[in-house]
């Protein structure tokens, strides 16, 4: 009786894992290239992946988007991947020091912060100065009434926001420090926040829902996006070709349209 039950359990496990393996093998027998990329690269990398598949017959590019730190942690824990593109060099460096990248990462794009306000700019924000709670000129009290949302200093966009405040010489008192730039944008588009510090590319992607206000000092706080092939890649040659596409003219054009700067 007990043996029969154990057999049943084994058969069940076998069936389940078999089904899982069947899924991951893909629909056809073509080659797979697994690309991990920072969430802010979603639309651009989808375009580039389609382009890569067009020029490489039988190759299926599988994209996976997430926070840079998440993606790096996944690679550290052994997730199978061929190419990784992050939103800052600090997260990528964790993989470099562990020898998990194949060669040195290359910077392929830059991004700068911008103030995003809800459509119509209900709080009448004109620039960082309106959000300075540390100024003694009397503007400080007005700034208290403006709900500013930024990224937490622990994530790349938040670290950039801290540096931007330093460079601009303002003191910011956000009502919330969000986990990701998407969360900041969400608070702005929904009108909950009067202003948020996000990337130029996010403002452009959000369309009419938000208005962007350029911050002159942002040019001194530039976020660099590195891309690298990974040491454990099964498709090293293809991975390098994909990186070349990102670094090349086609990549530049797509990234440019989305608002990313050249390295």
């Amino acid at each position, binding site marked *: 009786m*007990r043996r029969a039950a154990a057999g049943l*359990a084994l058969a069940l496990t076998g069936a389940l894992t078999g089904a899982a393996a069947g899924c991951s093998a893909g629909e056809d027998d073509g080659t797979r290239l697994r690309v991990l990329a920072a969430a802010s690269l979603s639309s651009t990398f989808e375009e580039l992946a389609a382009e890569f598949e067009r020029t490489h017959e039988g190759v299926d590019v599988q994209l996976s988007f997430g926070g840079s730190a998440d993606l790096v*942690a996944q690679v550290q824990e052994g997730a199978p991947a061929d190419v990784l593109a992050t939103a800052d060099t600090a997260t990528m460096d964790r993989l470099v020091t562990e020898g998990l990248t194949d060669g040195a990462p290359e910077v392929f794009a830059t991004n700068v912060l911008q103030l995003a306000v809800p459509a119509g700019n209900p709080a009448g924000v004109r620039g960082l100065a309106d959000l300075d709670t540390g100024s003694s000129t009397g503007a400080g009290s007005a700034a208290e009434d403006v709900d500013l*949302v930024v990224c937490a200093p622990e994530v790349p966009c938040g670290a950039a926001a801290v540096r931007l405040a330093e460079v601009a010489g303002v003191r910011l008192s956000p009502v919330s420090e969000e*986990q990701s730039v998407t969360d900041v944008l969400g608070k702005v588009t929904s009108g909950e926040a009067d202003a948020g510090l996000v990337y130029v590319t996010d403002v452009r992607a959000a369309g009419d829902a938000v208005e962007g206000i350029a911050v002159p000092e942002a040019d001194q706080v530039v976020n660099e996006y590195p891309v690298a092939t990974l040491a454990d890649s099964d498709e090293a040659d293809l991975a390098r070709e994909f990186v070349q596409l990102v670094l090349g003219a086609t990549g530049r054009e797509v990234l440019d349209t989305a608002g990313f700067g050249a390295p």
Partner: protein
Amino acid sequence: MRPGVPRWVLVPAALGAAFVLLPLVAIIARVPWTDVGTLIGSDASRDALSLSLRTSAASTVLCVVLGVPMAVVLARTSFPGQRVLRSLVLLPLVLPPVVGGLALLYTFGRRGLLGETLEVLGVQVAFSTAAVVMAQTFVALPFLVVSLEGALRTAGERYELVAATLGARPTTVFRRVTLPLVLPGLASGAVLAFARALGEFGATVTFAGSLQGVTRTMPTQIYLLRETDADGAVALSLALVVVAVLVIGVAHRGRPGGAL
């Protein structure tokens, strides 16, 4: 003597237990024990833990105040559309918490359904601790309603009927008969609601935001810490687990002979 269970049941039961316990073992194996003290003792962690305990306690009270009447109405009355209403009230159980947060935002947010009314009243929910409590109550309430409604149905209406025939008014029946009968069910429902509130993350970040001491609860702090220090996040999760077990243990012991 107990009739016992069929032996084959033990195999899937053991598999299930291993499936739940192995990840717990794995996480304990990753805890950086030497740094645990500093990690948990940091200002940010203590603020988060204290905020989590306060907001979860508040939302548990709200769940009891609102959930008990809801469960009673669902279990003891019948009216057209009751089934539909029950399914709708339980919706937060299946709704992804992030979507729950959006729903709250569309209701109580500045531009939400009630946003203007709240603005006139001078109430701003966004980015406040009250928003955290609302998010937690929203996701935890169905747990209390479900378990209490089950308890009410199991207890049946016999004693209530007897009390009523003896001349007790509805309020007296409710207070002296119904509530004492389902007290164990109410307690386990409250513990479930508290546990769910303590672990609530998605609706909170979407609806309330994240600021130390105001809206950043333990789960949010853990998620944020993971960005820079995965081991630290693990240590902090352990602290949350320990606190949850302690609280539930105390609540459990408070009820003589009660089983969860």
